[in-house]
């Protein structure tokens, strides 16, 4: 499969009065053409920082001591600010989290949607407005023709997020980064936005990086999932592998804390994430991990291969590690998955695994 984006050994620090916060610690991942990669993790795990580095929108107090972000044979970390401006909003664009604050309150929405066209395509104003109207229609703004002169405050939250999406896709970007695009919305609107994004992905043939802390959302949209914890990716694989055959105790914890029809009581991972001013030398999750071994406090686990597409950074996968029993909920998922795989192998209609 063709890689459209390849992030290698990325490290990002933020300079603060207290010292350097190591927000991203040696992160590598790639995005295949046409797929949706979900990056999952709790607040502060480094999801947003990672994608902002791809957009070239890191805060001024950041520095990137190491790493590469390869897009079309160029390293986005090396190119000039002007070159990056040409890529932003054109080849790579972004959907933001809060539609209530992401639109300029003093500019009509049509103009805001047309802006990327005017910057990148040197289109005439009239033509750009025509395109803006089409795209607004495409993202589901009813009666777009008569509404392009309206201002953001005249739209509901869901509609505003559709407008934010319209701005992001107006140039048919090759990569669309969505930073928690549904977090600020009602649950009913959330599913509409997810549906819209899936629809648009087919129509404009884009690859999506989808950031979220909501695993329920991931299941509905992602092809592959990367799980982040304390500035590192700790496990990645296809969506089925992560949901039904997870290997890292943190992923177990995340899945376990998601309510299902069977769950009697809601699980919460004990403790809090480490302070990234002084990251631990071993596995950052060890202090919260009931399966932690002595080595977890001493050395950072490398990635162990589970399948060709599935890797997890936990010492539990080391051949010498004792076999542990994952939580009951994970075992139940595992069982479902194997039943599903078996049925698929038989060539039968796949059962609904969930």
């Amino acid at each position, binding site marked *: 499969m063709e890689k459209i984006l390849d992030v290698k050994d990325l490290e990002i620090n933020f300079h603060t009065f207290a010292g350097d916060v190591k927000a991203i610690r040696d992160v590598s991942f790639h995005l295949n053409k046409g797929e949706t990669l979900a990056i999952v993790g709790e607040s502060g795990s480094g999801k947003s920082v990672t994608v902002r580095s791809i*957009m070239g*929108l890191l805060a001024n107090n950041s520095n990137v001591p190491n790493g590469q972000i390869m897009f079309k044979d160029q390293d986005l970390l090396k190119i000039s*600010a*002007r070159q990056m*401006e*040409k*890529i*932003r*909003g*054109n080849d790579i*664009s*972004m959907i*933001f*989290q*809060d539609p209530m*604050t*992401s*639109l*300029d*309150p*003093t*500019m*009509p929405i049509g103009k805001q949607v047309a*802006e*990327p066209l005017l*910057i*990148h395509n040197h289109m005439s104003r009239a033509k750009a407005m025509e395109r803006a109207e089409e795209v607004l229609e495409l993202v589901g703004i009813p009666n777009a023709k008569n509404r392009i002169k309206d*201002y953001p*405050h005249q739209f509901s939250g869901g509609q505003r997020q559709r407008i*934010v999406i319209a*701005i*992001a896709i107006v140039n048919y970007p090759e990569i669309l980064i969505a930073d928690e695009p549904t977090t600020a919305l009602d649950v009913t609107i959330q599913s509409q936005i997810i549906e819209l994004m899936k629809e648009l992905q087919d129509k404009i043939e884009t690859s999506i990086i989808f950031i979220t802390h909501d695993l329920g959302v991931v299941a509905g949209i992602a092809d592959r999932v990367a799980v982040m914890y304390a500035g590192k990716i700790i496990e990645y694989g296809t969506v089925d592998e992560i949901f039904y055959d997870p290997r890292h105790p943190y992923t177990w914890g995340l899945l376990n804390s998601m309510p299902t029809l069977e769950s009697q009581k809601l699980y919460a991972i004990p403790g809090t994430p480490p302070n990234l001013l002084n990251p631990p030398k071993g596995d950052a999750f060890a202090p919260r991990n009931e399966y932690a071994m002595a080595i977890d406090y001493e050395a950072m686990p490398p990635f162990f291969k589970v399948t060709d597409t599935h890797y997890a950074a936990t010492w539990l996968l080391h051949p010498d590690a004792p076999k542990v029993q994952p939580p009951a909920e994970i075992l139940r998922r595992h069982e479902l998955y194997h039943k599903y795989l078996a049925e698929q192998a038989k060539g039968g209609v796949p059962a609904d695994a969930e």
Partner: protein
Amino acid sequence: MTKYILKRIAWIFITLWIVATITFFLMKLLPGTPYTNQAKLSADQIRIMNDQYGLNKPLITQYWVYIVGLLHGDLGTSFQFNNQPVTYLISNRIGPSMQIGAQAMIIGTFLGILLGAIAAVKQRTWVDSVATFFAIVGRSIPNFVFAVILQFFLAFKLKIFPIALWDGFSSSILPSIALAMAPLADTARFMRTEMVDVLSSDYIELARSKGLSSWQTVAKHALRNSLIPVVTIIGPMAVALMTGSMVIENIFSIPGIGEQFVKSILTNDYPTIMGLTILYSAALLVIYLVVDILYGIIDPRIRLSTTGGKE
């Protein structure tokens, strides 16, 4: 919109009438009479003059006469300034004050907005520090000090401008600059604060994500949003500037209105006090109307609807 403006104009007249009434009665409470300091006048002379100016009639009659005169555009006759009609006195002297004030206003707000915006964009760099320093200097040094400094260097030493003379545009430049320093500093500080706020907002990040350069982002998105609160301080500032500054007018020998206002109060020159108070109130009310219309132009969320009220 038109209906809203007409309604506001009607209110301006009502407000002016209230201001005139309150000022009229308050003024009579001022200590002394127009003849204080005029020890040479005999009781008879004072009686004759009181008769002539109608000052011995009951207060309510005086008020009635004044309001009727006001409606006809007659502001009465000044006691102090050579028996000139107040309308004549004002119209003769308001021009230079207004001109200097307006020029100071334009210099102050434009440069202030520019300086504040640059400081915000370059926040926490030396540019920001320099801008902040100038703002503090501009705010804390009185304008007559600036006036004298400007006179010394630009007029006396370099002879670019006249020192103290009222003759055409070139003579209005130095006083305008001197008067503009404080509003410039205020606008710059205010603008910087607003802009720093706006620059950290989500829609600015979105604008950057579209591929706009940082200066394009400022010009197209940040500036307008930062201006909304700045417009608020521009209203009262404009009135303070337009109504003349006695000190600046004195230093530059400008035949403005500032001096008359101060003198008229000191000498209980009732018609002049009344006339100028009404004039200043009218200026304030008109500027507030302009500011409200400006708000609507800048911020669509408070745009005035055609039905007369606000949305």
